[in-house]
């Protein structure tokens, strides 16, 4: 019982995180807490196999999938929390609270009698007991889950797969295209300069410098530009370097 009263509030708090978290990552973390908490409750309730499966499948596999997808679609591609459907939040809250209260009160009314406990069922071990059932009376359902999983995998592949609609361009075609672009729009046919060329640093956030000392556009990844994390480059950088290394320019040496 002690375990329950410790774990249960945690679970509820974490689950509320699902409702209120701004970022999907935080919600996912909340869900992970809930799942682990539930795993603990399974263990408390004489279900060690499910405890393990809960940890492995849910927390290990499913939650990871969630996190992957969150990464894939962008951590920041969160959706505004402002409700667009009028009354939806209020209605959801009212109905939710009403529903919850109703169920909880209903459950509270119940008297289920003494708990039988699983001592007898688990006498040869919990896993053994489950296996008896799974490969006994429920073997057909088990087979169906296999089919279901295969179908799900195939479905996921179909959904995630993108059909190539045009033939792959050959090297020659690519080159021709590049020169055509240069002729038509003046786009540079070569590789764009990598960050740090002729610059003070070769870090990824420092733009390459053109011969006149100005930064070359397109040499820094767009994401850094968007975030404003590009190093400031001014023309007197060169002079600054000279000053720092304590040497004057070669022209001055001649003086």
């Amino acid at each position: 019982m002690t375990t329950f009263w410790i774990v249960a509030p945690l679970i509820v708090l974490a689950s509320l995180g699902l409702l209120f978290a701004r970022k999907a990552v935080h919600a996912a973390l909340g869900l992970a807490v809930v799942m682990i908490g539930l795993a603990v409750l399974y263990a408390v309730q004489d279900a060690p196999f499910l405890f393990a499966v809960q940890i492995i499948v849910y927390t290990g596999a499913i939650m990871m999938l969630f996190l992957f997808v969150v990464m894939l679609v962008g951590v920041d591609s969160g959706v505004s929390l402002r409700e667009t459907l009028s009354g939806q939040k209020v209605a959801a809250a009212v109905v939710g609270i009403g529903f919850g209260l109703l169920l909880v009160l209903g459950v509270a009314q119940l008297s289920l009698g003494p708990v039988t406990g699983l001592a007898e069922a688990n006498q040869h071990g919990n896993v053994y007991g489950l296996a008896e059932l799974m490969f006994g009376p429920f073997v057909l359902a088990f087979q169906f889950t296999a089919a279901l999983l295969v179908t799900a995998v195939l479905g996921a592949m179909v959904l995630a797969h993108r059909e190539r609609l045009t033939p792959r361009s050959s090297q020659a075609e690519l080159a021709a295209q590049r020169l055509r672009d240069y002729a038509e729009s003046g786009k540079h046919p070569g590789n764009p300069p990598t960050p740090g060329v002729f610059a003070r640093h070769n870090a990824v956030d420092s733009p390459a410098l053109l011969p006149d000392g100005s930064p070359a556009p397109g040499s820094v990844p767009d994401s850094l530009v968007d975030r404003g994390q590009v190093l400031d480059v001014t023309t007197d950088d060169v002079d600054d370097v000279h000053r720092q290394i304590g040497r004057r320019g070669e022209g001055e040496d001649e003086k």
Partner: protein
Amino acid sequence: MNEYLALSMILFTIGAVGVLVRRNAIIVFMCVELMLNATNLALVSFSRQHGNLDGQLAAFFVMVVAAAEVVVGLAIIVSIHRARRSVSVDDAHLLNL
């Protein structure tokens, strides 16, 4: 016993409300998972109440189905995101004429 069930109900309700109010498809999905887990808890509790393992087995099957569902569901989300650059469930309202 009742407290387990009550917890299960609360989690289920929270999950359901989450489905209603969140617009991020991923979070909506998580809420669905939460609801599934809530029922699992109830199943496991009843298993103990009745002293047989049928409930636990049912919970196991739910987990399998949930896994399959998540795989497909997330794939759908990804492909929608690829097509529409959005994961808001409200953007997919083509049912409206």
